[in-house]
């Protein structure tokens, strides 16, 4: 799958949410703590902290369908949908990647005027679990006329 570089940048560096639905159609969501794109295999691994995202992890293992949403302060945003390939502990490299991502989010939000204690409540933690999904479709979610349109096939 070809993904424009600006989209990759938003997906990997934006404020990230991961969402799911249970078998009885109850949606769940929480913040993700980084992600890794594998363009060769057309997968996205979403970094989460298992205890923080327990409902999403549970749904990922049962209904196996996940949505990933990432947005930057300019309002540029994208949504990825896909089937879950695996739910597994993160490698040391991915944990390090998650740490870097969280540090960057805290820095960005602090530069926007928030006290560091505020973003640290959410991003002052490191992921331990990776939810890997197939990159089935990416949708533009930037407010405006292109919102909701797929950007890739």
């Amino acid at each position, binding site marked *: 799958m070809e993904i424009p570089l600006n989209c990759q940048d938003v997906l990997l560096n934006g404020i990230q949410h991961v969402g799911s*639905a249970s078998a009885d159609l109850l949606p769940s969501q*929480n913040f993700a703590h980084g992600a890794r794109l594998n363009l060769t295999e057309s997968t996205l691994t979403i970094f989460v902290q298992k205890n*923080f995202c327990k409902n999403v992890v549970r749904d990922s293992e049962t209904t196996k369908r996940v*949505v990933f949403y990432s947005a930057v302060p300019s309002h540029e*945003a994208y949504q990825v949908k896909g089937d879950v390939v695996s739910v597994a502990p993160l490698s040391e490299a991915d944990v390090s990647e998650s740490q870097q991502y969280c540090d960057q989010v805290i820095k960005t939000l602090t530069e926007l005027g928030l006290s560091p204690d*505020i973003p640290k409540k959410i991003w002052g933690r490191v992921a331990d679990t990776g939810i890997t999904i197939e990159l089935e479709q990416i949708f533009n979610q930037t*407010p405006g006329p292109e919102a909701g349109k797929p950007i890739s096939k």
Partner: protein
Amino acid sequence: MIKEEHLPAMQGLIPACVTTCSAAGEPNATVVSQVWYVDEEHVALSHQFFNKTRRNISENPKAAVMIISPENGSAYDLTISYERTETEGALFDEMDMQLEAIASMTGMSGIFKLLGADIYKVESIVQVA
């Protein structure tokens, strides 16, 4: 259900993420500018665009909303259930005015437009951070 400690997270300063699910079980996530306190058991979400979220709640009224307090960073996960949409009246007018202010502050004037105030019953609130 909704307590005073939750109210700062409903001031519209930090956008809220909303996840819904179709009748077929397909989740969808988006961001809304406003989660508005209506009363102790209800919130209103700004309906700004005709989109997948609207289609999903017409099939399955349940939604999950994450709100964050700009005062202390506390994050709350709300499970809500859609009841109705108001397109006029005091609530709509108040939300419309605030949305215009948000749009002006964020460079989204002309793009953010309130189409309706979607009223949801709050079923649970869990503090996640």
